[in-house]
């Protein structure tokens, strides 16, 4: 399959890339890893007239800790995340999630920025970033803008990014001691989108009471979903079979999966409940050390 003809630019600076986006207008798309965009172009589901390849722009592929924040550059690949000891130390769920994203060759190319900017609730990082309370940094002609993750996803393939803006960084608050996180997705085979996926981050105090909970759901809602009622069901309470069951029930009720080849709506809701339960247990176990 061959994409429709397009023009290709590979700017060397962010400013140049942004001015190209303004110059070429809505017909320009940004190319990062390209592992969502190029397949869509080959199927002619996407037919941009201009591709602005941002891979030649320095300073967009980093994983670093600055004060109480971990910063991940938009061009950081899934493989780099998979092998980052810094990320796995603070957020054990990155070891869970990267292993489940596509396959090793795709992870060598696909980027975290692209995974989020694509605005697809079937992707795995949106739920992860909801659970971790991340902030997305977008850079445009007016400089940088911080977008809380809860305001980032607007609809199917739609995000808060304006035309002329480039997602440049993801910032995640470093959680306090006593925090654990976990992610799992049910998939039919390697490389498939999730039948259902759940990301959980919990902070427990010394008595085992939940001080903070973040829960994000993958591919069971038109837009990536924060399981707010489930989070509230845990916060301020000890993690017991009862509170876990309550959180699982709310998540299954509050999501809105569609029946498809991966399963019926009913099945997906049931799987959300199972995964929420398992991931709370796993995150709590990790939080206790």
């Amino acid at each position: 399959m061959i994409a429709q003809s397009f023009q290709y630019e590979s700017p060397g600076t962010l400013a140049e890339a942004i001015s190209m986006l303004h110059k070429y207008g809505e017909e320009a798309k940004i190319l990062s890893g390209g592992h969502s965009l190029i397949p869509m172009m080959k199927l002619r589901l996407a037919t941009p007239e201009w591709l602005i390849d941002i891979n030649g722009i320095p300073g967009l592929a980093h994983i670093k800790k600055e004060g109480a924040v971990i910063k991940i550059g938009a061009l950081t690949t899934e493989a780099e995340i998979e092998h980052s000891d810094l990320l796995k130390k603070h957020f054990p769920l990155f070891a869970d999630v990267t292993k489940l994203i596509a396959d090793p060759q795709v992870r060598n190319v696909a980027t975290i920025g692209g995974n989020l900017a694509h605005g697809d609730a079937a992707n795995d990082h949106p739920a992860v970033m909801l659970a971790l309370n991340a902030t997305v940094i977008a850079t445009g002609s007016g400089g940088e803008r911080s977008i809380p993750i809860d305001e980032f996803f607007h609809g199917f393939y739609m995000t808060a990014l304006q035309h002329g803006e480039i997602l440049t960084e993801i910032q995640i608050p470093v959680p306090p001691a006593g925090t654990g996180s976990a992610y799992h997705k049910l998939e039919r085979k390697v490389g498939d989108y999730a039948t259902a996926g759940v990301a959980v981050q919990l902070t427990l105090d010394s008595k085992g009471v939940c001080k903070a909970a973040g829960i994000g759901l993958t591919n069971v809602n038109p837009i990536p979903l924060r399981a707010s009622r489930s989070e509230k069901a845990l916060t301020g309470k000890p993690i017991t079979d009862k509170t876990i069951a309550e959180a699982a029930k709310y998540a299954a009720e509050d999501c809105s999966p569609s029946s498809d080849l991966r399963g019926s709506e009913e099945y997906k809701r049931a799987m959300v409940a199972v995964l929420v339960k398992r991931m709370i247990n796993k995150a709590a176990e990790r939080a206790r050390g």
Partner: protein
Amino acid sequence: MLKKITVTVNGTQHVLEVEPRLLLVHMIRELLNLTGTHIGCDTTSCGACTILLDGKSVKSCTILAVQANGKSITTIEGLAPEGGPFTPLQEGFKENHGLHCGFCTPGMILRATELLAHNNNPTEEEIRWGISGNLCRCTGYNNIVKAILYAGAKMRGEALPSTEPEFV
């Protein structure tokens, strides 16, 4: 509008003028006539088109040729010199019946080349996860895994495991 790109393929530098929409796999097969890189699914699933791009295994059906500008590519043809000794992986595949119809083999070997470059002593489970982006429809995975274990042992200079074929 054609774009001029410079790529080094199996150690030889090429300057090419390509359409931006040209896929890397088509550049390799049709412009450079290196047909060892296969096209299986054409949808980033099967891994038959796997090559090394600056040492990293990637699926060349999902990368544009223009994205390889300035980079170095290794295909199956570039692993062993003409008539020269096989790499440990090629030898492992030969000795362990790691190829049946052979269609997935170039992709399997390039992928496993990167896997063993990072860790020449992987467990069977690490190998199976490591080649999870490569499909073999002859269901020959057992002997492929054995071939990779064999190559790892060879690279470490250890005694080679049995090459008795596995029948399942």
